[in-house]
């Protein structure tokens, strides 16, 4: 029958219940402990994780810094562009979307392939750029069909715009960041968003880290499926820094016009401040096509072009300096007392040394010459003799002092150093001993010499300013400004007192510029000789002189040989124009202006242009006139302050 109760049974149940209760207490402690650990001790970590769940960020690139010329005109600016992005996860049927877009925008199979590859390589919520520079009609067509294009997003964005083709080489261009860029440029870390462009050449490259700006963020709250629920915040990022350059767009344009159809370069420099007023290379190309991705055909066109439009010939083009080196040869000889300027030498059209014949450009010869005449008429025979007595090592020392053989500007990747030859250079780089004959060639700027047009411009500037070392610059900044406080003071003083109490040139000698001479008379001598070369009958650039007093300039022509004339060619009197294009000489011209109180130096190179006097000097004449016309404006701008 039913046996209920029983004291022992009840006691057993009670005992076992006690054990269970103890176990329960342990479990409660476990749960409470876990709650404490999750919600109190590690709460911070889980809050972060929760926010990571909650928020998703979309990066976008800020406007890139602008580059302006000295007068505030924009050289590299930004424009509004119309773009089309796809956010794959917002599209219900990606295939249909791509097909529709293909029809609307006439996309090629290749572009479709690229888009697909991009989609598969990134997260489904990251936007993919289908087209980053739509025309207005394409953009409006997209907007018309937008209701059928789920997942497509028309975006109005900003992109780089280059308005001035004359400045393309010095400014450079931007393009998509390559893998190499991302690996080698540390500053790019965290700066790349959809559509960010990085500087590839020129100033765009040099100033990239400052101009690129800080990426902005759009923060959205998203649900577990990645759908945007609401916008939480927008961080607009930071626009890149704007830069003001020393360039003058008017001069740039004029110089570029003068070089049109030619291959060459023009450099203009302020001889006291080192400000580069113009730096133009020809032919030019359209940098805008790099911003949105250049097509293969245009790229091939640029790469295979005879005149190499991508190269900035002002700093990356290297030429033997030709007769322009005679200025330095003269200075070096005078400084080292190896030659008396009054020494007369008879030029018979050529001289012989150890059986080798050295020709003067003038076949008939110049007759009796002193040093001033030698420079003025650019007598080669005279400078063979100057060089022979001077020796190559002393000449190269002077050349280096005046800025040849090393980069003029900092941070421009294209710039090349060139070569200032001497005995040890030849031994090291060619492995042979120097011959005296090579010294003679070096004396007229041929042979191993390699110098860039900007180096020649600097050399001329440092002769024109009385022989003082300057540090050229292209970006205006505070540092550069302080360097010239004394100069600015002088300009002030000069205004207050009567004009010609003291010349700027004389003032300069009292100040802290490092002098490159032992005797300033030697520099003056060369300046005077250059004046003669341009402004006295018989001077090599007499035909290109400017006669108005304030425009009078002094310059030296040069012709740099691409190929040495053979004896047969000399006999046949073959003219330069008759040679095949690539064998013709380069035409060079360097000058400073105005002669009385000089302010600017200039160098012009026309590749395969023949003689310096024939093709380079006329260009220089026009550019000098423009520069001097703009000088008062430039000066007044300076008083207003150079800051950006």
């Amino acid at each position: 029958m039913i046996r209920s109760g029983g004291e022992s049974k009840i006691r057993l149940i009670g005992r076992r219940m006690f054990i269970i209760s103890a176990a329960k207490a342990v479990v409660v402690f476990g749960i409470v402990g876990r709650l404490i650990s999750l919600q109190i001790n590690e709460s911070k970590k889980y809050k972060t994780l929760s926010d990571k769940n909650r928020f998703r960020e979309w990066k976008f690139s800020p406007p890139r810094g602008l580059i302006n010329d000295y007068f505030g005109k924009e050289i590299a600016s930004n424009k509004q562009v119309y773009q089309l992005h796809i956010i794959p996860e917002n599209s219900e049927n990606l295939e249909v979307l791509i097909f529709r877009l293909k029809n609307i925008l006439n996309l090629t199979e290749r572009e479709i392939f690229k888009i697909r590859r991009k989609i598969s390589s990134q997260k489904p919520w990251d936007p993919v750029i289908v087209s980053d520079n739509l025309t207005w009609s394409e953009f409006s067509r997209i907007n018309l069909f937008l209701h059928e294009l789920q997942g497509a997003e028309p975006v109005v964005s900003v992109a780089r715009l280059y308005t001035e083709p004359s400045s393309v080489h010095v400014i450079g261009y931007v393009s998509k960041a390559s893998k190499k860029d991302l690996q080698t440029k540390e500053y790019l870390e965290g700066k790349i968003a959809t559509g960010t462009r990085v500087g590839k050449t020129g100033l765009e490259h040099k100033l990239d880290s400052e101009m690129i700006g800080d990426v902005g963020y759009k923060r959205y709250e998203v649900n577990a499926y990645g759908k945007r629920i609401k916008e939480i915040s927008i961080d607009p990022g930071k626009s890149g820094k704007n830069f003001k350059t020393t360039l003058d767009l008017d001069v740039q344009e004029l110089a570029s016009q003068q070089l049109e159809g030619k291959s060459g370069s023009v450099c203009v420099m302020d001889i006291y401040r080192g400000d580069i007023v113009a730096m133009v290379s020809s032919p030019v190309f359209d940098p805008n096509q790099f911003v949105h991705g250049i097509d293969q055909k245009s790229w091939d066109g640029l790469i295979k072009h005879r005149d190499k439009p991508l190269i900035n010939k002002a700093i990356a083009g290297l030429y033997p300096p030709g007769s322009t080196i005679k200025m330095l040869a003269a200075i070096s000889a005078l400084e080292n007392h190896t030659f008396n300027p009054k020494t007369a030498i008879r030029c018979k059209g050529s001289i012989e040394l150890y059986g080798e014949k050295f020709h003067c450009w003038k076949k008939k010869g110049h007759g009796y010459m002193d040093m001033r005449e030698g420079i003025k008429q650019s007598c080669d025979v005279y400078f063979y003799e100057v060089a022979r007595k001077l020796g190559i090592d002393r000449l190269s020392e002077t050349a280096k002092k005046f800025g040849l053989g090393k980069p003029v500007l900092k941070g421009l990747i294209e710039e090349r150093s060139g070569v200032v030859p001497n005995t040890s250079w030849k031994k090291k780089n060619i492995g042979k001993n120097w011959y005296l004959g090579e010294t003679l060639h070096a004396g007229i700027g041929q042979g191993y010499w390699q110098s860039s047009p900007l180096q020649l411009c600097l050399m001329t500037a440092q002769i024109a300013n009385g022989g003082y070392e300057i540090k050229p610059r292209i970006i205006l900044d505070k540092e550069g400004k302080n360097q010239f406080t004394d100069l600015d003071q002088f300009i002030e003083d000069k205004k207050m007192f009567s004009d010609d109490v003291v010349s700027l040139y004389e003032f300069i000698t009292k100040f802290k510029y490092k002098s490159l001479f032992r005797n300033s008379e030697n520099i003056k001598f060369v300046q005077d000789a250059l004046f003669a070369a341009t402004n006295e009958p018989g001077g090599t650039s007499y035909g290109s002189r400017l006669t108005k007093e304030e425009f009078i300039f002094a310059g030296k022509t040069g012709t740099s040989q691409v190929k040495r004339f053979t004896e047969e060619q000399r006999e046949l009197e073959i003219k330069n124009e008759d040679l095949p294009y690539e064998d013709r000489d380069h035409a060079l011209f360097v000058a400073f202006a105005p002669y009385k109180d000089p302010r600017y130096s200039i160098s012009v190179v026309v590749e395969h242009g023949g003689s310096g006097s024939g093709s380079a000097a006329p260009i220089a004449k026009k550019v000098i006139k423009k520069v001097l016309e703009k000088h008062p404006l430039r000066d007044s701008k300076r008083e207003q302050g150079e800051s950006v």
Partner: protein
Amino acid sequence: MFQQGSIQSHLNLRDKIFSLDLIMVSCVLILGIISFFAMYSTDGGEFAYHTKSHIIRFFVFFFLFIVVSFFKTNFWYNWSIPIYIGILGLLILVKFFGLTSSGSQRWLSLYFLNLQPSELMKISLILFLAKYYHRISSTDVNRIKFLLTPIIVLIIPVVLVVTQPDLGTAFLIGAGGAVVIWLAGVKMKFFAYMAVIFFSVTPVAISFLKPYQKSRILTFLDPSRDPLGAGYQITQSKIAIGSGGLFGKGFLNGSQSYLDYLPEKHTDFIFTLFSEEFGFFGSSLVLALYILITWRIISIGNGFRDTFGKLYCYSFGTAFFIYVAVNMGMVLGLIPIVGAPLPILSYGGSSMMAMMFGLGVVMSCKIHRDQPIG
């Protein structure tokens, strides 16, 4: 002696109402109110379907709780076997006519609710075993002959539920039954034997299952087979609870659940949602309420004279605690994810019905503590 009506006793209705355990009733009501807020939050801050139906169910079954408690304990003693057999019958019916949802066949469609007999089995098994051990003497408890019935009545429903498949409920049913058997005084060694048999038979049993059932059970046992499922749920649940911090993100501000990161947020993961919005204080409060209820159940068992009542209250109290501990352990990432609702708080009619019924029987033991059984 004349046969008295089931409700009638020397106590009148007024007496019965006054002898209700007020602590327990208020704890249940507070949990109910908390569950309304939690449900309102899972509905995204709207008074929508889940909230409405949960509130209705809570009050309906709270009424059931009170009504059940007014029946004499002896009535539940007498009816425990038919109730067990009836629910076992429903479990078998589920095999044939059950509704299938997310791959598991658990529900019988009644017009007003989808009944989940496995939930009710949790209680009826305890009732059955409490009666069984009430009837045998303590000397017989450890005899093999008397061990057979408990094992059979425990195994049959567990196997039925496992094959639904619903491992979580099967485990909770089995755990409840095992608690009764252990409290009745069955020696530890029998439990050890059973464990050995269980672990040796399980692989064989699994091999008899259909492939899709097999894969579901294997995924159950080894969540890493389905990384985006169980592992994801645990991680997101921990993030939600942890990010709640000391005071929580505030009512309706639980971003994890609001943004659909939480799975099953109105059923198994309701505690997660509550912890996220109300922080450590909120979760401690809920835990304290459950401990209070458990303590009251055990105390009522202490006060009951007869073996049946004691055994039932102790077992149900322990089972109740196990349900809570398993659910919390699961959402806190202490044990693997098994489908186990949190009593009263979780959305689900059958679970609510089972808990209220179980509590009702406990309350009946309180009201009728001095009346003899049998």
